[in-house]
């Protein structure tokens, strides 16, 4: 029981210690719960054209970014609503873009996650511009 007594002494000797300990325990517990609830490894988003209409059957490429290199892409396609889903993605930083014939190549957008396997929905849809023929 000595560790508990030591912690109790710490709290008694300075009330600010109890606040620090409480903050530490709360934030750690909160973080662990948040991670447990959001660790399905799903990355999801939408591909739209310039007018905001969904683009079906567009190829979406995700490339994991490590400290020194960018890994080969993982590819999926959008459904009829322009929605794409990547499953079991254990990455923390990645580049994403969309491609489709008849559209200009999309730009790479970089995202960073807080932990590996984080459930992540792209905050903004990927926009594809139609190729303009002269």
């Amino acid at each position, binding site marked *: 029981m000595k560790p508990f007594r030591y912690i109790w002494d*710490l709290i008694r*000797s*300075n009330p600010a*210690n109890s606040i*620090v300990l409480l903050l530490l325990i709360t934030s750690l517990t909160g973080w662990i719960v948040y991670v447990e609830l959001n660790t399905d490894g799903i990355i999801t988003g939408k591909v739209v054209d310039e007018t905001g209409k969904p683009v079906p059957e567009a190829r979406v490429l995700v490339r994991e970014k*490590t*400290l*020194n290199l960018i890994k080969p892409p993982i590819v999926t396609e959008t459904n009829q609503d322009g929605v794409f889903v990547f499953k079991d993605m254990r990455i*923390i*930083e990645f580049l994403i873009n969309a491609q489709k014939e008849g559209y200009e190549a999309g730009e790479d957008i970089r995202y*960073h*996650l*807080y*932990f*590996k396997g984080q459930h992540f929905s792209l905050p903004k849809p990927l926009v594809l511009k139609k190729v303009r023929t002269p």
Partner: protein
Amino acid sequence: MNRKILFKLIDHTILILVSILITIPLYWVLKTSLTGENLFNYPPSLIPQDPHIFYFVDVYYWIPFVRFFFNSVFVSVIVVTANLFFNSMAAYALRYSFPGKKLIILFYLSMMMIPFQTTIIPAFLLTRYMGLLNSYLGLAFPLSSTIINIFVFKTAFDAIPGSLFDAAVIDGMKEHSILFRIYLPLAKPAIATNMILTFVWSWNNFIWPLIIISDKEMQTLPLGLSTFLSYFENTSGQLYAFVIMVIAPIILVFFMNQRRFISGIVSGAVKG
């Protein structure tokens, strides 16, 4: 205005200014760890722009931070425990009067003047001879007893009235019981000082782990920090995030024990 208040005001202004000066580098490290801003940016911005914690996430995932952290904590626990045990026993022995006591104290004091760098090679050979290279015990070995902390205990024990010792002896207590059940509970500030000082030394120890550790899994945080330098430029946010992660536990330990720590240091300063 009262003269006394004026002096107090000047005192506090100087103290606040010095505190700010001391805190600025730490603040800058924290700011860089949150923004990744280049240190040489001109004009420098005092307030962090777009702070985020992704550099900390990178450190957590790209190096075995948890392993390094565990190694540092484990070695520090061994060092702190060994110091409390050995130093308190040495200081307890020094409270007796015996022939050559002054010579031993003089010997201790002279040993304090020898820098660790000069004893590295014998310490390494001794550690290798004992088969402790690449081990936690080997990492803790040179710090398992420190002379300055023996004196911290000695001053604390000297302040305990001799009548307590006499009463314990009359009651038939053995030496180890007198030390662990009477002297140590009465020397809490000295224990706190020992714990904090040895924890800080062990936590920051760089040269010794660098010499005896060749296995990456056994590296401690300061050693990991130096390895980290080879991955990144010295201006990157990840490096500073790592620095914050290394020093945060030590700052926390200090702040939670600061009253005891300071009282321990002060008691050591005024008693002879």
